[in-house]
């Protein structure tokens, strides 16, 4: 299994991912899925979610974190559920909006 | 938990004179609030005590159950088992406007500060608020929206009355 933590920024509402390097008392969030910290076993996944939830309570910058399943595809992460794939990219009917449009510049 | 009171346009933190008594517990001396079922089971004895009496209604217990005894009750508390269980709003209005009850109507349970304005308008006079104990904040929130459209038992002048009075 491969999982990452997805959430929303409190202020902007934008979708964010628990970023690589989070742990050991430091937590950061990134807007692009490829910057996400990946868990490949259940214990690690549970630990990442706990980290995210603690950050919700402590710093109050994100909300509603939860785990999603992802696959690696050509060096990129992709959610396995289509709902989460749409969240990670943006509306399929407006390819000019959302992360799919911002990927290059970010 | 703080007990806040809203009375004649003023707001205050007040001391709770009442002890809320579980159904099985022995009655302490002094004013008590009991459940509806206990009140119904021990009505005579409770009314014969030499202290103020209150009844708390759960959200599925209508004030019509105690309509005949309201004159003998110092407080009726309406319990909100969850903030979104809004039956208590109707009960408060019925207590005030249908049954003419003039005693204390208390909001207990999952009561949020931000609901207090609706509660006050519905007829509640005291509030057990979990998320605030600051009177100034309570008062500010309660009076935040100055216009009211609905005529309720709280006697506040509605937009319509002010329009007609112009």
């Amino acid at each position, binding site marked *: 299994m491969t999982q990452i933590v997805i959430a929303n920024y409190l202020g902007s509402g934008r979708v964010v991912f628990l970023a690589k390097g989070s742990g050991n008392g430091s937590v950061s969030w990134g807007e692009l899925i490829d910057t996400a910290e990946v868990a490949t076993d259940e214990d690690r996944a549970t630990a990442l979610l706990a980290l995210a939830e603690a950050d919700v309570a402590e710093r109050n910058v994100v909300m509603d974190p939860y785990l999603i399943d992802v696959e690696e595809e050509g060096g990129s992460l992709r959610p396995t559920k289509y709902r989460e794939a*749409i969240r990670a990219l943006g509306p399929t009917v407006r390819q000019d909006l959302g992360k799919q449009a911002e990927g290059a510049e970010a | 938990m703080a007990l806040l009171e809203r009375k004649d346009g003023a707001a205050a933190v007040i001391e709770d004179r009442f002890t809320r008594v579980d159904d099985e517990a022995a009655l302490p001396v002094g004013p008590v609030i009991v459940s509806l079922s206990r009140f119904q089971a021990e009505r005579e004895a409770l009314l014969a005590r030499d202290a103020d009496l209150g009844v708390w209604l759960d959200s599925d217990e209508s004030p019509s159950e105690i309509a005949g005894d309201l004159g003998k009750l110092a407080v009726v508390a309406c319990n909100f088992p969850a*903030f979104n269980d809004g039956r208590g709003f109707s009960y408060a209005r019925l207590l005030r406007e249908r049954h003419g009850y003039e005693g204390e109507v208390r909001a207990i349970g999952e009561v949020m500060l931000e609901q207090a304005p609706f509660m006050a308008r519905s007829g509640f006079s005291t509030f057990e608020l979990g998320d605030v104990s600051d009177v100034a904040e309570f008062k500010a929130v309660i009076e935040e929206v100055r216009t009211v*459209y609905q005529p309720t038992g709280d006697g506040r002048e509605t937009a319509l009355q002010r329009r007609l009075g112009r």
Partner: protein
Amino acid sequence: MYRYDEFDHALVQDRVTQFRRQVERRMKGEISEEQFRPLRLMNGLYLQLHAYMLRVAIPYGTLDSRQMRKLAYIARRYDKGYGHFTTRQNIQYNWPKLEETPDILAELAEVEMHAIQTSGNCIRNVTSDQYAGAAKNEIEDPRIWCEIARQWSTLHPEFSFLPRKFKIAITGCENDRAAVKVHDIGMIMKRGAAGEVGFEVLVGGGLGRTPFVGKTIREFLPKEHFLSYMEAILRVYNQLGRRDNKYKARIKVTLHETGKEEFTRLVEEEWEAIKDSTLKLPKEEVDRIAAHFHPPAWKALPNDAPTCDSRAASDPEFAAWLRHNVEEHKTAGYAIVNISVKPPGEPPGDVTDVPMEAMAEMADAYSFSELRVTHVQNVTLPHVEKEQLPALFDDLAKHGLATANVGLVSDIICCPGLDYCALANARSIPVAQELTKRYTLERQQEIGDMQIKISGCINACGHHHVGNIGILGVDRKGEEHYQVQLGGSASEDASLGKIIGRGFTQDEVIEVVDKLLDTYLELREGEEAFIDTYRRVGMNPFKERVYGTA
């Protein structure tokens, strides 16, 4: 249209201040998301798939050019340049920031608009006939009563934490363009025995998981009891409605489980106790509000319109637009114009800032600055001089707003679905886009009246139950799938569609619609509309064609 007085202004401004304070408390961490959620929802602020979503009320669908310009400005300044008109005559912005929502609400308050009660378990924005004040056989402008209801329901102390959301629709005539029969309360204006005006009161209509057509609980309600009767219904519902299961919490289930007779008895009993209270409407106040809805200064015009007729004779495109998008007005020499904001291939209901401003311009130039948003997600100019129709058509065409498809196959009702909505099971917009591109206008005109309605989940914001063809997105083992229903209608002959059979993939569902339309064209008699053919021949012929067997 209604103009706020100082009391209405003060309320909306106070509400902005209140929300600003609530947002600050949230940002500072004084209240948790759990505590904040009901507060933001009471101001129409959702958290959706990609971001927050703000739903702004367009009370009973009426707005003026100044308000439309403000909506365009907000789209540009605070969002990504567009908004989505909904089936409840509201507008949704898909990308607002929490920190900026108080500013958006302050901007709205400037033009007498707000987002109060566009979500949450409270009385929602009251909806009405988009032709109100212009419709031919209208008894009275229903917006007078919508505005009375709006004020009464705004921050109602008793009914802000109901078992579930509560939707009210009011019409002024027997032609139902507001889907009154699928609302929690539907009020249909009618005349009593002595010619006096009142309402037929329906309760318990609704779509979603268990759809119901509303039932009449009172044949005639005199006008002055309009509010007390609604208060009685709501009070009974607030106490009786189920709170243990959110799928059974709507009043339609309360009515169903209590039984219509008993429910009606309880309402009437409650009403007896309050009908002569202060809720009884004084004539003075009704007149004050009615004065705001006095007709605009229509000119005395002849009914024939030679310029318009000759253009129609020489320009088939204009003629088609006239036939499909323009309706008769109650006043000689005037017409009602429906602007289709659904050109082929575009998401239904989505409009960007520039066309919004163009429509505002045109409202100023042609329609006494008035516009309406319709429950089929189009925009209406209610009072256009017939002789001006050619000029208006040309202006509309310049902005890509002259698609002559109102009431046709491509005039699809469609919810945002999984492209935006956190509750969705499947996408709905791509299905609509595919269908709107599929048929030429000629072909659509040949097919005639047709309501296709698409929802991305069982909540039915896209009204699929009452589509002649209804399409519902479902999740089948992790794949987007679509269920098809036939025979629904949202008009005065309201009916709920029936599921035709097993579901389809997105590609298949498009072909299914082809087959349904072909079957209809083969079977129809004379000028019969799809819904009438369906009612005459039943499900089987359609089923046979789609599945190869009945």
